């Protein structure tokens, strides 16, 4: 329905369907009635409501009083408006259908948002900002964990294959042996189970930086720490593949003395493999030294972010 100001003249032209025309006509009638009353100077129609509600000052109120005495039209208006008001005032108070008390769930209480709700404006911005930084750094941290593992596997696995093999056969048992000589993807899942079991313990305990030290036992741990079991299996299982197919180029870059595949194979199986291990290791550690630094910095930021975030939580608790 329309929002026609009193005194609106016919505004609509063109096509109106019958129903809308009826609606419009009714509205027009009502507003025209209002028009007549409002526009008649001397009459007090437009002041009746305010008069009724005691919103007129004494002078205006007395004037309306005096007018009403002599004007039947305005008196009728007054009576009807007063009756309307009474009907509205008499509308029954509807009892609420339920209690509208709030639960924690309704106000959406999450750990990080306490600070926003309760603490003065400037504080939560700092703390929630640090929480965001913390989250970002934590993500980078996790990415680097996995990256470090995979990078190393390319470096170490090719050179340390004999070492691994020997250590593995000594420590692991049949599962490991079946993996080493047979390339192919089918062994992956089988080996990953047994291999992962053995090394999960060392994974969590050994920080990356110390495991980078060249040590046959640690080498094995290094390749596994931070890397999923699947990746690890790929590293060890792919050793012969690397030697025979894909890795020949890589091996050439790592091991300066080897140029042909048969030589590489000999290098693997010879007792002097450890020499290659050292070479590739030092080669590998140079780029990874930077990664160690980045890694430690990220670790520090993660710790710092955790402290700040905890601080936000405790501040909000107050």
């Amino acid at each position, binding site marked *: *329905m*329309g*929002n026609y100001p*009193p005194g609106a003249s016919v505004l609509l032209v063109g096509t109106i369907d019958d129903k809308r025309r*009826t*609606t419009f006509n*009714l509205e027009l009638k*009502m507003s025209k*009635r*209002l028009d007549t*009353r409002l526009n008649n100077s001397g009459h007090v129609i*437009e*002041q*009746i*409501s*305010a*008069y*009724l*509600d*005691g*919103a007129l000052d004494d002078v205006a109120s007395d004037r309306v*009083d005096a007018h*009403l*005495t*002599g004007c*039947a039209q305005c*008196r*009728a208006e*007054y*009576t*009807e*408006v*007063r*009756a*309307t*008001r009474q*009907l*509205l*005032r008499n*509308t*029954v*108070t*509807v*009892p*609420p*259908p*339920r*209690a*509208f*008390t*709030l639960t*924690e769930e*309704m*106000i959406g209480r999450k750990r990080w948002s306490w600070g926003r*709700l*309760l603490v003065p404006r400037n504080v939560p911005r700092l703390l929630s900002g640090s929480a965001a930084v913390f989250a970002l750094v934590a993500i980078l941290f996790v990415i680097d964990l996995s990256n470090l593992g995979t990078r190393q596997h390319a470096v170490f696995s090719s050179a340390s294959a004999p070492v691994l093999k020997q250590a593995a056969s000594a420590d692991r048992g049949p599962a490991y042996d079946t993996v080493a000589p047979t390339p192919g993807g089918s062994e992956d899942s089988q080996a990953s189970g047994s291999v992962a079991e053995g090394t999960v313990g060392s994974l969590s305990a050994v920080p990356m930086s110390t495991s980078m030290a060249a040590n046959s036992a640690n080498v094995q741990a290094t390749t596994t720490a931070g890397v999923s079991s699947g990746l690890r299996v790929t590293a060890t299982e792919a050793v012969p593949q690397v030697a025979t197919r894909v890795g020949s180029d890589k091996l050439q870059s790592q091991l300066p003395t080897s140029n042909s595949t048969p030589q590489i194979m000999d290098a693997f199986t010879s007792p002097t493999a450890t020499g290659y291990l050292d070479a590739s290791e030092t080669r590998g550690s140079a780029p990874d030294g930077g990664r160690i630094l980045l890694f430690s910095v990220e670790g520090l930021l993660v710790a710092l972010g955790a402290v700040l975030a905890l601080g936000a939580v405790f501040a909000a608790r107050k």
Partner: protein
Amino acid sequence: MPGDIDSWDKEEEARRLESARGGDLAAFNWLVLHYQTRVYNLCYRMLSDPDAAADATQDAFISAYRAMGRFKGEQFRTWLMRIATNGCLDVLRSRKRRPTISLDASLSSPDGDDVDPLPIADFDPSIDPEGSALRSETAAIIQRGLDVLPEDQRTVLVLVDVQGLSYEEAAAVSGANIGTVKSRMNRARARMRDYLREKGVLPSGGELSARSERSISRDDR
């Protein structure tokens, strides 16, 4: 709205307000329990639908809780009703954009069909059963009359006449100045009067003499 709806200890309310401002949810819920009838009725009269009114009431209290940090320097009742009123106006405006057929067809029709699909339970049939049917029909007509008013007129009429606010309070709640409230009240009452007269609900006036009307008007206003 009867005056006794707000008759609780204002000191106690002030204490709860302080706690609630500090984030005490239990204190805020005390306020909810004391104001929910008022807020629900405001929403109900604005939206003409019990379910929409319940949603709007809940939303109003949630918004109020979240905004408690910004509440200061005015009456809680006015502040809370402003939140509720604005929420209802948002609902009305979104209804205009996406009209639901049942609501518009039956309520906005000027043809006067008395088929009202809305379950307006405005009366207790155990009190005066003969009059209750009449009251219920009158109540339904009044609600329809409110529904055909333009938003701003409906708002002031509900605030002043149904909720019993003064013009000043209505101005604070609706964010308009007193002059605007006065003119909206004038138009709203006149329109409602016309609607009620068309429906035959308005008692016919004019029986009283001018003098007695005047004295009535002074005392009984």
